[in-house]
């Protein structure tokens, strides 16, 4: 070899190495780590824009039957970059991180007149109802504590976790607006300050405490995306860790919400006014192994069979849980279901109405639940506030049956009329029924 040829040869090798790097990079895109050798395209009919999210997320569950993947795709709700094929760029501009139903982005992600910010008379104002509901404002608890420590003269709510306004009041107890508690809490009695600093973790917008059994998402997904005990994902998306909390158990939204989801906030313990702190229950067995009865009720509680055999949502319908669209001071202002709603009185059966229209909101709601067999022509129970309990149906023989929304089991609903019940119609508190019908916790 001539001496002058050697540098050129070595330099050519350097270039070849560069070409080699480029070749390897071209042949091994980052998404290949998740199993797909080529990009996976999706063309949602709603947007008409191609998306490549499934290239990495191939195997993820369809979010719900009401949001078919081929119609909605991913980006309509989650945001992000539909064409990108590396995680950092693809996830830029995502709405709410992994949770587009978080309340700070829910209007952009899930709103719109055709989606969940529709007219209230068609039952499509889900976002507004959630944002002003007591579960979001925490107004009842705040008002009660302020009243107890002399910061306000009555139990009417004045403050919420965040400032909130309701431009349209539809009920006699509805409020126009609530101010944010935290900015004023510093000037309040010490107990209210403690409430502000320690006790605002249970409302729907708050991140949950990082403890087993408490893990849930926020916003709509706090209830509608079921989480398991340790908050880890168990579905089919290859990109999501199975060992990390902070995920729904699968990428599914459901209206069949099990009591365990309610228990991520409820039934965990008690607030004590004495020290204004939360005291965890000590009667629960470790590791989430509590029986349904143990999980539902603390040892001193009284309850009837239906109260723990059914799931919470079987008796607390949407109007109670998500509210009626008004800001309220207390739970009893939105409470619509009483024992007599399903069991009737000594002289009258439950109030019912018939479904005549295939587009009836109650029928739409029923069809979101796989357990429902409700159809046009059926008669269903109505609460005293006019909300339809689509899962309590009057049969042709005049008897009533309840379909459990989560388990799908069907129960006959015993009626007070014609029985030996000593019901006092005016007293519909649960304790009145418990006097005769309570069962013991074993």
């Amino acid at each position: 070899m001539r001496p002058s040829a050697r540098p050129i040869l070595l330099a050519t090798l350097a270039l070849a190495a560069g070409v080699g790097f480029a070749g390897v990079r071209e042949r091994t895109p980052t998404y290949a780590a998740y199993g797909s050798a080529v990009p996976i395209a999706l063309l949602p009919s709603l947007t008409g824009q191609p998306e490549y999210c499934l290239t990495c997320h191939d195997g993820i569950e369809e979010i719900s039957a009401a949001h078919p993947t081929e119609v909605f795709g991913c980006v309509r709700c989650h945001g992000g970059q539909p064409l990108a094929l590396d995680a950092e760029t693809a996830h830029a501009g995502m709405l709410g991180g992994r949770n587009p139903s978080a309340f700070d982005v829910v209007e952009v992600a899930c709103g719109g007149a055709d989606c969940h910010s529709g007219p209230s008379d068609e039952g499509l104002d889900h976002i507004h109802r959630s944002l002003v509901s007591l579960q979001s404002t925490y107004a009842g608890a705040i008002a009660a504590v302020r009243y107890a420590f002399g910061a306000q003269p009555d139990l009417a709510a004045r403050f919420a976790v965040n400032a909130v306004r309701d431009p349209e009041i539809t009920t006699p107890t509805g409020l126009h607006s609530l101010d944010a508690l935290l900015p004023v809490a510093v000037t309040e009695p010490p107990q209210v300050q403690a409430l502000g600093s320690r006790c605002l973790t249970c409302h729907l917008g708050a991140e949950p405490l990082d403890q087993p059994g408490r893990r849930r998402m926020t916003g709509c997904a706090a209830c509608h995306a079921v989480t398991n005990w340790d908050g880890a994902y168990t579905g089919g998306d290859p990109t999501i860790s199975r060992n990390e909390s902070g995920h729904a158990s699968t990428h599914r939204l459901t209206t069949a919400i099990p009591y365990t989801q309610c228990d991520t906030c409820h039934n965990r313990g008690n607030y004590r006014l004495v020290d204004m702190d939360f005291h965890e229950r000590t009667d629960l067995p470790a590791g989430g192994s509590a029986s349904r009865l143990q999980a539902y009720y603390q040892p001193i509680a009284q309850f009837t069979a239906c109260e723990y055999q059914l799931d919470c949502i079987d008796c607390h319908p949407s109007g109670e849980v998500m509210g009626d669209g008004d800001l309220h001071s207390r739970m009893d202002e939105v409470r619509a279901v009483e024992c007599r709603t399903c069991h009737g009185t000594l002289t009258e059966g439950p109030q019912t109405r018939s479904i005549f229209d295939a587009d009836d909101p109650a029928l739409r709601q029923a069809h979101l639940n796989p357990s429902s067999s409700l159809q046009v022509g059926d008669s269903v129970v109505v609460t005293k506030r006019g909300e339809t309990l689509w899962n309590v149906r009057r049969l042709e023989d005049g008897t009533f049956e309840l379909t459990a929304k989560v388990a799908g089991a069907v129960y006959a609903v015993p009626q007070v009329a014609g029985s030996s019940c000593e019901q006092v119609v005016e007293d519909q508190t649960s304790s009145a029924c418990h006097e005769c019908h309570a069962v013991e916790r074993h």
Partner: protein
Amino acid sequence: MKRPSFFEHLHPPSIPEPQARFRYTLGLGGLSVFFFLVTTVSGALLLFYYAPTYEQANASVQLLQYHVPLGWLVRGLHFWSAQLLVATSGLHLLRVALTGGFRAGRRFNWLLGLGLLVLVLGLDFTGYGLRWDASIGWALLVGTNLLRQIPLAGETLFGWFVGGPELGAATVLRLFGWHVFGLMLPALGLAVWHLFRVRRDGGIAHASSVEFPVRRLPRRELVGREVVAMLIAGGCLLALTSLAAPALDGPLDPAAMSEQAHAPWFFLAVQELLRWGNPLWLGVILPAVALLALALIPYAIDRGRLLGRWFPSDGRLSQVLAISLAIGFGVLTLRAALR
């Protein structure tokens, strides 16, 4: 006898051996030419996919990056060669300043080089803006608002670059126009002129061959060295492009910009100055004075005559000035980067 071609006019037929050594030139001028060529060719290829509209600009970059075969490579080569061009041309300027290469009839070419550097910075900044993603918004706003600070002509210049009273739908097309035509055409012209002037001014600055006769490298050998340098630089460029993709975020919405400044690295020094106070004085006048001081070196500051060596003893003032400016730029850049 065969008549020399145009390219043979641009390329020296021979070069004095001491000045052909790597430790004299550091290969910076040649590397700048190489990176300029790579940037130009890869940029021409990008034109086939880039859509200079408000709605499509970012999406077309994503399409190119992720779905066009080897699109990531072309974009990466364009990006990295542009960054390296800024670096090598800046260092080339410093090398020429510290070797007195602007002396003895070469001072006009010094001005051409300075103008070329300014155009390269403009090209890099407009190219940065063409990405039109969320990460460029704040720096683009700050950079274009600096134009407004220029007395008398500021608002007009701002309008020329932004295409309206604020960043918006017209801005992408304006940036594109300036990038591929308004700045590129003069840069191409100046680059050719700069190379031509090197030849016209007697080749690379060197001591008088009458007083100090030295061996000269013939063209064949010089081209061989240049090819070696280009192959190595090309290999490094390919490796760099393969290992580090240029940043890409979601589309820019000028109405909802995050206040996090992600200025391009060569702009960090100005960004740091802007933190200290008045934008007219610190963002416009101070950089302009620095540029003017550089421009004046061969005309008013340096009277030396020695050529072809590092740190000639008769040019201390210009060397101190150039090094001070370089250190100032480096310190400001580092300080901003470490924030």
